[in-house]
């Protein structure tokens, strides 16, 4: 267990799109400890919010850690008003990580919206394998396609789909995924899917993974109060592991996303 609670200073804060922001914080500890897939709980001092908010680690450069967020509600809206030099309370890094890919594996990264930042950090961490990574970005419309250029800059192949066809393929990102699997059918046993985005996307991606027998890791979201595994608020229903079956005397259980996740084997999840 290596998370810490720290007060950090905002070192940079940039709007990168309609409602999308990247905030950088200075924290040697966090920069050094963060692994792809992990997140932080981020709290605004003296704001009228009780809990911190969960944000995935999007990037690390030197001692700076970057979070990419979209303004959704009160917390992200207040965060967007914070200026460079102001303080944030951070607990992290939290949660488990995406698996380190084996050198011969080929990664299919499927993301939507603010599910893309952890995938970017994943791709960047294993950038030496970037040529074996295909990134599929799904979005409602052009305005919500983010990080396309950044992934390309890493050396990944990138494809886009939008619901309204305003960028890339008109349709669902799972169409891109199916096509990518077909195109790589010769190396099917080397494929690895990693996905993060809205639940319907993750459910569809998991189903494809199960059907095609491709290992699939999905990073999920639930409301979190603590991020530390103690409130048991952030659960999703999963099949029990063999040990759990014995201990709990049942087949299904609720799994805490903040410490047993956020990354779960897609086939473990029972969609409610």
């Amino acid at each position: 267990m290596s998370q810490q609670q720290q007060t950090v200073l905002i070192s940079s804060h940039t709007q990168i799109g309609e409602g999308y922001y990247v905030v950088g914080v200075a924290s040697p500890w966090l920069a050094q400890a963060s692994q792809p897939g992990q997140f932080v709980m981020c709290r605004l001092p003296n704001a009228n919010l009780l809990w911190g908010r969960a944000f995935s680690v999007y990037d690390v450069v030197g001692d700076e850690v970057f979070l990419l967020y979209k303004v959704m509600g009160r917390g992200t809206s207040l965060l967007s008003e914070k200026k460079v030099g102001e303080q944030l309370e951070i607990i992290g890094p939290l949660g488990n990580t995406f698996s380190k890919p084996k050198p011969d594996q080929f990664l299919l990264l499927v993301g939507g919206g603010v599910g893309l930042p952890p995938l970017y950090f994943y791709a960047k961490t294993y950038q030496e394998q970037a040529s074996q990574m295909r990134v599929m970005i799904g979005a409602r419309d052009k305005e919500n396609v983010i990080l396309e250029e950044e992934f390309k800059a890493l050396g990944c192949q990138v494809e886009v789909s939008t619901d309204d066809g305003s960028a890339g393929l008109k349709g669902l990102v799972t169409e891109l995924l199916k096509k990518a699997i077909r195109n790589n059918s010769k190396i099917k046993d080397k494929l690895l899917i990693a996905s993060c985005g809205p639940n319907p996307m993750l459910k569809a991606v998991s189903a494809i993974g199960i059907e095609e027998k491709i290992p699939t890791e999905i990073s999920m979201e639930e409301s979190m109060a603590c991020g530390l595994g103690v409130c048991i608020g952030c659960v999703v229903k999963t099949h029990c592991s063999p040990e759990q079956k014995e201990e709990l005397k049942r087949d299904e259980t609720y799994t805490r996303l903040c410490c047993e996740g956020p990354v779960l084997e897609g086939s473990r999840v029972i969609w409610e």
Partner: protein
Amino acid sequence: MGINLSVQLGKLKLKNPVTVASGCFGYAQEMESVADLSQIGAVISKGLTLEPRIGNPSPRIVETPSGMLNAIGLQNDGVDVFIKKKLPYLKENNIQTIANINGSTIEEYEQLAERLSGADGVGALEVNISCPNVKHGGIEFGVDPKACEEVLTRIRKKTGLTLIAKLSPNVTHIQEFAKIVEGVGCDAVSLVNTYVGMAVDVNKRKPILTNITGGLSGPAIRPLAVRLTWQVAQAVKIPILGMGGINSVQDALEFFIVGATAISIGTANFYNPKLSAEIVAGLEEYLLKHNLNDISQLTGSLELNKK
């Protein structure tokens, strides 16, 4: 001369009066990297049941103004796994442990009390008769005086451990319940558990919590919990473990002053895991500044305004 922070709850001696509340600190190990476990007077375990429970479906928690609703539904791996897998860590690390027990029937409470009384490393039992988030048992025992009396009487017979009964605030006259607790021979009373509340997703026009209602905790309820602690302090002589919305040293002081012997920190652990250590230090500082040398001098020191 040193400052004495140690307090006594029945047979249980705590090195300091700052405990962490049930359901809000896991089994301590989860918090070891962010909290200073050596500073905590006692860790109260997540609510234990006889059999493993998987709890309620998500969403289970909602943020509210200065508070939160939870409807966890007592997810836990059961008392046996607790004894086998969680207790050893607590013992090894010299963490004083209070087991929080929950039954759907009186018999379950009895069995829990028996099993935990035989387990090495359990310092006391806190009987949760006030969980608002389970279908059977839980709060039923906490809002009906007869049921309350019966369950506590029967548990009392099964354990020689320090027995603490945890009261529900969702009642008209809490003193009545506190007196029952004292009358049946419990060593201490703890309060408050959460207040039953509800939140609505106005776009879907559905309850946000799958369980419909949940328990409200956090700073929002502090003025209510302080008042109930004060009222119970008027009604009984057994020590009070006070809690509800403690978020700072000053909040903790309020509970001592109105009559708590020890306090418990719940929701605040979620966003400030270091709070218990901060409060221990803050209590010492306060006592020094006010020329007191024992925390017991603070308990019940409220002076009423003359009129």
